[in-house]
């Protein structure tokens, strides 16, 4: 096998790899049950954060709002909204979450947890967030599947 011997190639690829996890899920149906028990008892912030961003995006697209329009209607900073959607490590301010919660008619404390501002061990929330994040995509039209997923997720958040 002819592996690439170029130093610069290696450095560039290493840089890319370091920015991410590289997990694939081929063996997902054969998870070691002991491992699953251990890991699933921890709150998975990545999943809830992803679910949070997707929730915002879908809710916005459902209402056919641009980011500017949402910022105006919810009375939040546009710059922050942009950062929430584009920067995975960005943490929104509590006030912004509160405003968004009110505008979207969602429990503020739940949204805080999703956004990573509060740490709560809630396996049910984590599971629902994984399902929702997997069923939604950040692209143009809200598909019927996404609409259903959004409805279900919102219902779940409101129930508790």
């Amino acid at each position, binding site marked *: *096998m002819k*592996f690439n011997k170029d*130093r610069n190639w290696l450095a560039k690829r290493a840089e890319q*790899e370091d920015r991410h*996890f590289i997990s694939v899920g081929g063996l997902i149906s054969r998870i070691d049950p002991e491992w699953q028990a251990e890991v699933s008892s*921890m709150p998975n*912030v990545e999943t809830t954060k992803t679910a949070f961003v997707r929730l915002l995006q879908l809710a916005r697209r459902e209402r056919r709002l641009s980011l500017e329009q949402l910022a105006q209607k919810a009375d939040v900073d546009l710059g922050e909204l942009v950062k929430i959607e584009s920067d995975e490590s960005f943490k929104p301010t509590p006030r912004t979450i509160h405003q968004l919660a009110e505008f979207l008619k969602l429990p503020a404390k739940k949204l805080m947890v999703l956004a*990573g501002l509060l740490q709560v061990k809630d396996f049910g929330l984590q599971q629902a967030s*994984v399902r929702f994040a997997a069923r939604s995509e950040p692209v143009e039209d809200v598909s019927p599947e996404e609409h259903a997923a959004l409805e279900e997720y919102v219902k779940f958040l409101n129930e508790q």
Partner: protein
Amino acid sequence: MRETIQIIDTQTGEPVDAEIFDEVALTHFIETQAEWRPVILAAARALSQQPNQGLLIPRHFHWDWTRKEAELKLLAVKFYGLAHEGKLQGIMKVETVAHSCRLPEQQGKPLVYIDYVESAPWNIKKLMAALGQPQRFRAVGTRLFEAAVLQSREEGFRGRLGLHSLPGSEGFYINECGMTPVGRDPHKQNLLWCEFTPEQAERYLAGE
């Protein structure tokens, strides 16, 4: 197969020699998983306790190794190990028969499917950062991925590759590696199926 390749020693920043090989010793892998697991758990716990987390808690799914002896004899399955001075730094499992291309332009053509790929936790920057420890080696996952692409070419599959990306890794496979996101697979918990065309594989190997 056993070849010498370079990975990066984080301490010196310099490439060092490592071995990539496909002769598998199951007990070897099991032992190694036993060594990896405590570190991953410690890192996951540390990450979950940190307040400022937009970061990822690892979704490393550990394979149930107990029933695997028979699978190792299958021609369709291949394991790769990457070792530095005898110590395993990464593993990958690929498969060549149960999956084929889904992109319309190459539908039904064979590909190499990456079932499992993992770098030892001490090589994963985000995990080590959570533990406040230095990352040991870089580009381990890259070399394994590269091996899968090279195998695809050697098989005559022309670099065609497929995998189900976990949610936290989609950006890596699509943006950094240049794979096409084909769609979410309802038979695999809606994970995103990503695929290489021969041209994309070529570009990856060449460094674009």
